[in-house]
């Protein structure tokens, strides 16, 4: 598969303002991500990992720089267009699952399909199929509060993947899980990667960070190191 940058960020800056106080969370991020790449992002807490994910995915606005996804500058798009673009091209997985509590597992999973205009029956069929893939075929009718943490995260992964987005963002996807469940969930993500989808994972976990194609270190709002995970871990995470 020919590698081309699915995401290209240049000089991305983000400033948080609280009253008169300003905190520069991102101080010029330059990053290219190739299609089909498994990119790991690591760094100390509060140094800008999640902010980077939000800004590069278009969830949050930026104060400077540019972000191209599939060659399109997402921050120049109006909100509605950017939202539509996000629906078509991206999937998201968060540490705290963020499932809609009043929907069942399959209703949660079919949401991205419905928002992309997939027929309701087709969406339900594909959602259930996706839930079977993540091992929750028998839990499709349950609400989030009736599922364990691991099961909820599987539902979140199914939701992120069901529309087959080109780019999947995962922010600490195993942070709330025990080690065994975390490994199971990570294996699911590896399966995603193997199927050709681009995956960007923010994590604290060295063992997970070590298993990407590339590892990026974020410190003080900047990318301070990137390269093969083993090398970056050895040189910058002791």
């Amino acid at each position, binding site marked *: 598969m020919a590698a081309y940058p699915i995401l290209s960020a240049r000089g991305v800056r983000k400033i948080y303002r609280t009253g008169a106080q300003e905190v520069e969370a991102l101080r010029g991020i330059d990053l290219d991500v190739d299609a089909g790449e498994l990119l790991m992002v690591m760094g100390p807490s509060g140094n800008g990992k*999640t902010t980077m994910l*939000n*800004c590069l*995915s278009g*969830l*949050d*606005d930026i104060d400077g720089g540019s972000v191209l996804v599939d060659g399109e500058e997402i921050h120049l798009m109006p*909100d*509605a267009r950017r*939202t*539509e673009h*996000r*629906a*078509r091209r991206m*999937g*998201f997985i*968060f*540490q*705290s699952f*963020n*499932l*809609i*509590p*009043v*929907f069942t597992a399959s209703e949660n999973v079919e*949401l*991205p399909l*419905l*928002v*992309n*205009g*997939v*027929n*309701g*029956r087709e969406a339900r069929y594909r959602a259930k199929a996706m839930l079977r893939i993540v091992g929750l075929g028998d839990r499709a009718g349950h609400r989030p*509060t009736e599922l364990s943490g691991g099961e909820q995260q599987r539902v979140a992964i199914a*939701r*992120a993947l069901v529309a087959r987005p080109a780019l999947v963002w995962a*922010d600490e996807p195993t942070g709330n899980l025990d080690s065994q469940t975390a490994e199971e969930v990570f294996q699911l993500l590896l399966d995603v990667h193997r199927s050709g989808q681009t995956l960007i994972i923010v994590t604290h976990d060295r063992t997970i960070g070590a298993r990407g194609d590339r590892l990026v270190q974020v410190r003080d709002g900047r990318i301070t190191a990137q390269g093969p995970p083993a090398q970056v871990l050895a040189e910058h995470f002791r």
Partner: protein
Amino acid sequence: MRLLILLLATPLLVIAALTVFDFAFRPTFRRLAVRNVRRRKGEAVLVVLGSLLGTAIITSSFVVGDTLNASIRDEARTRLGPIDETILVAQPDGLPAVLARLTATPIPDIDGLLPALTAPVSAATVDAPGRQRLAEPNAAMSEVDFNAARGFGRDPAATGFAAAGPTPSGTEAVINQDLADDLHLGVGDQVEAYLYGTRVAFSVRGVVPRLGVAGFRTQGDDQHARNLFVAPGTLVRLAAAATAGTARPPSALVFVSNVGGVFDGARATPPVFRELRARTAGLNAELFQSKQDVLDRAKEVGDRFATLFGLVGAFTVIAGVLLLVNIVVMLAEERKAELGMLRALGFKRNHLVRAFGLEGNLYAIVAASLGAVAGVGVGRVVVKATEAIFASGNRDLSLRFAVRPVSLVIGFLIGLAICMLTVWGASVRIGRLNVIRAIRDLPEPESSHRRDRLALGVAGVLLGVVAAVVGIAGRSPIPALIGPPIALWSLVPLVGRLVAHRLAVSVPCLLALTWGVAAFSVLPSVFDGSDVSVFLAQGVVLVFTSVWLVVTNDDGFHLIAERLSASGRGLAARLALANPLAKRFRTALLLGMYSLVVFVLVFLASFADVFQAQAPRVAREASAGYDVVLDVNPSSPLTADDVVHQAGVAAVAPLVQARPQYQLQGSTGLAQQQTLTGFDESLLERGTPVLAHRDRRFASDSDAWRAVLRDPALAIVPGGLLSRGGGPSRTTVAVGALITVIDPASGRRHDVTVVATTDEADYVRSGMFVAATTVPTLISRSAQSRFYIAAAPGTDPTQLARRLQGDLLVNGAKADTFRTLVDQSLSRQNDFLRLLQGYLALGLVIGIAGLGVVMVRAVRERRREIGMLRAIGFSSRVVRTAFLLEAAFIAGQGVAIGMALGLITSFSVISHSSILGGESLPFTVPWTALAALAAASLSASLLAVYAPAAQASRIKPAVALRIAD
């Protein structure tokens, strides 16, 4: 009642004491409460606003009562002043004998006697170029010694004659302000008076205020007293020259002033009245407790209006309570993890309840204080509207806005009690949460309180059965109405163990609904004469049951939502339905708020529609085939021949009228003075007034009327003959009742048997019908002063009435068509219903504001969900639309439930029950009112929710998720 107050007051006092104790000595509770209030000031304001409306409504009902009471009491000052008792002497030449008896020896407790002569007149302005002639048929010409009047009661300012100058002489007249206003007269103008078949002109020498003796009313049935004071001797001279032999001579009056001021003097009325009766015995004099009657009526009407508005307002208060519960439940759910953590840190359940209760009570105190003040404003608006309604009819009453401090205090305390009890009730529920489930935000399992529910179920069934049996056996409508539904609701947890939940809820609820709607028809003997409180209970029963039924069976909306979203275009609808369908308790509270208020509004609108639609029928049924009612001045009477020879008149039925007192046998109520009408065969020549009920021995209405003509011991009366003071009828006279007719002059008593009843409302104010020949045996003073007139073919009755009134001005003629009289009466009735609807609409404001408050909190509560939806591609437009649709779904469902219940219940009551005096009226759907109500409530709901919906759509996904994570 005292026991009830004690039962309510005890927990309230315990809560209040705990609140004070915790605030003073439990710094942790205080800190938690105060800081949570301060943390979100905007929402605190919303909570207070939502809560204060209930107190405002309660306080305003007291304010309306205070105002009515004060206004009518004020009549004691403006219409009576120093007059405490009045003695009416039928013949002026009997006056010296009466005065001699009264002054023979001093009467204890009185400080003045004032003789006067009076006669009814028509007054008019004189013809003058360029000036429209004005006439007033209901005026009085009186003679009184002005110097004596000023000294009467030892307070000249209270008599109205303080600046009146000397007694008029010659053709001078002093008029009072009411007459001056009506005829646009001033000092120096000429005024003409028509009486005893002649016209007399006077020059206005002065205008006195409508106050005290100068404001005493002897004519008309409104609140105006149009008096023309003339030189002594005028009336006797004119009466002596009377052209009609049947003219009633002037009446002699003796005003009596008790020791004490305008209001305090009435305390001495009982002994003074006994003494006056003893001294006037055998002198053909009628005695009246003028001041005490006004004060009694003031209290009665004030209390009745306060009760009526209080009960109607209770629907709004219940809506307010539901909102408060909703707010507290949302607050608790939002802080569930925080509360669970406090439990984990060592807070006991009662600590949690008290900390949460303390915060709620801070809101309650502020809300009740502001609500009491706002209630004065609401009361003012209601009083203004009431005044406009009174002013539109003949019985206008100028309202004097009044608020007693005690009303404010009581309104505040009731509002505070409701808020506190609601908050603490919800807090107790919160205190039962499981620590782990709270921290992890997990739902409570279904089975957690199963045993409690079973016990409550058994107790409820027993309570319901007992209430039903006691209510039905004792003909007590409220227990009879609510007993069966309580038993049926309580069955739910019991049968829920055996059958599916949906079935366990649906069947009892359907049965309870059927009972709630049909009870009035099934047991008319229990529900006859039901007052507003019964309808309040019915509204609560029906709404509670319907809402429970609907929220249990609303899964069908899931299918609709799925169908909607199948195309990808109905995503907003799907999101909109998800939360209301998932959070049924909250949805039920919101639905209850809307349904309850809309139910009553539709109920009132249906009645207004039905009443208005009855006008042609009612007029036709009362008219006996005649078209116009003509009333003339008894001092310038007419014969039937005089009337029948007027142009455009085809036929005339003369009626004799008088004002005796009536007492219903077996009733403890006081005797009431009402109209007596004597009729002859001519009334029955063109048809008969239609009867509502008649004795079974008569085959037709005509038979009943003719029986009364033949038998002096029989009478026909309107069902509401003995209801007085406005508002709903309290005493209904039934066929077979025995009524004692008392002649006020002689005190003679005659019993008559009611063989039939006419329309309860008595739109043409005929009072009791007896044979004309019977009237003199019942009462000494009567006159042929009313005529039913049939218009000649081709003559417009309205034009005829107008012409008769102008042509017969000299006779003080007042002519109206039957239709006009009925329309006027129904119009006032409907205006009053509209006023109640307006008052009740405040409940809808609570519902709409409540929905807005709930949505504001929902946006906060669902921030994380909104962030996630936005992250996966839901546009801001879809999010905004979803919130608007959610509001529309709840409001629409609530309005639909309320409307359906309102229509079904009003149909049942109007068509099948005997609650409306036994009349089965044709039901009409008030489409216009329904459309207006639906449009107003839905658009206002969307408007109230637009701001939070827009706020939700503006939430940045990253911000929401960052906060969440």
